[in-house]
């Protein structure tokens, strides 16, 4: 048996045209490549820090 209230909560208001700009700017565009590059950068930074500590 479907629960009307629960089902209703699944519906979200449609995006209006005036909101299009905000949506585009706020969209998280990071992909797996970006994540990997960040990981690599963080890894190299940690390696550099470890070398300086020694």
């Amino acid at each position, binding site marked *: *048996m*479907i629960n*009307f209230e629960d*089902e*209703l909560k*699944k*519906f979200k*208001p*449609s*995006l*209006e*045209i005036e*909101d*299009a700009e905000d*949506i*585009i700017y706020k*969209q998280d*565009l*990071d*992909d*797996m*490549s*970006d994540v*990997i*590059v960040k990981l690599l950068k963080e890894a190299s930074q940690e390696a550099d820090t470890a070398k300086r500590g020694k």
Partner: protein
Amino acid sequence: MKCYYCGAELTKDNTCPSCGAKVGTYKKIKSLSNRFYNEGLEKAGVRDMTGAVESLRQSLKLDKNNINARNLLGLIYYDTGEIVAALAEWVISKNLQPEDNLADIYIDDVRNSPSLLDNINQTIKKFNIALNYCRQDSYDLAEIQLKKVLQLNKRLVKAHLLLALLCLKNGKWDRAKIESQKALELDTGNLMARRYLKEADSMLLPGESGKLVSDVASDNDGSIRYNSGNEMIIQPVKKSAIARSSSIWGIVLGIVLGVAAACFLILPQRIQSINSNNQAKIAQISEESDSKSAQIVDYEQQIGNLKKQVEELQSQVTGYEGVDSTSAAMNSLMKATAVYFNDASDVEGIAQALEHLDLYAIDENVSDEFMELYNSLMALVGPQLATSYYNNGYDAYKLEDYETAIANLSKAYQYDNTNVNTLYYLGNSYNANGDKDKAKEIYDRVVTDFPGTQSAAAAEAKLAEINNSGN
């Protein structure tokens, strides 16, 4: 494929030829992204839009620069009515790859059709209003809004789903099923639509294909409703010939009863009202007639009085006329006397003055003095006047101008009644003029006044002649 680190074009090797970066994992990620894109493309081909969206999102998470995946995602959003989301994907795609991008065409299509944009905006606003109505428990208003939304854009899957949910809430299972099926036609992989369809189907009569639970109630109103595919067919129940004939007899009976009611209830009242109106009119006319009769009697009395007054006035006028004629006669006599004293030989002047004096007309009104003066004047000028008139009259008689002859001879006899010839020719003039009675009277006077004369004998002969011709 370009190096993620320096942007140089990569070769088949797992190392960048420009910067020496290791790109093996990067290439695997790109490949995985393409696999998701292909999967999304396949799902979109069979209208599994939900599945396609999931695959394409995965593809873009792996590689945001997968322009094909992004453009396809925009197309899928556009097809399911999510225009703003579609535009957002196409704009990002355009920014990531400004040249040689299909997103240009899609964006231009939307931009060049302002009515389409306005329509889209209206659709979105109405859907959001409907959703608000649902949250405020105004389900009827929400249903109306959603129907308007679907009139504007039949491809908005969310609207079909929300309408189906409302129908389930209101117990309109058949309608919920139809809306769920429409949503599934647009998006075959939509789980919500499937659940709603299952819920609606569970409320249908088991074992009766096409018949709905709600059909049971509607059977009582003389029609059968069932679904054939997506169409709801309402079929009237066939009636037997007896049932049809009974309805015809019912109509005939109704007409007969209507006519009878008109004859026995409406017509008598109508006739009575017409009669009463006519009686009122007759009474009014008779009253007017009576008043006019009274007026006529009154007028007749007035006419009688006026006639009496006219007669009295006429008698007075006659009296005045007598006075006038008497005074005129006096004037004539005075004038003649004056002419005689001026010139005794002016017989024509005297005759002219006495021309209008008629002694027979004034005989009763004149005084003795008048008659004495008249007789004296006649004694002096009578014979001369008589001779003058006699000559004129005799000449006219000879010329057969009897009218002139009668006038002159009458005057001649008036002034001298001793001349038998005057009277005899006067009688002849009347006789010749056709006035036989007057002629007989004159002849009779000739015989009586002048007996033994030749004229008397001739008059007797004329009398005998007239009498013989009269027989």
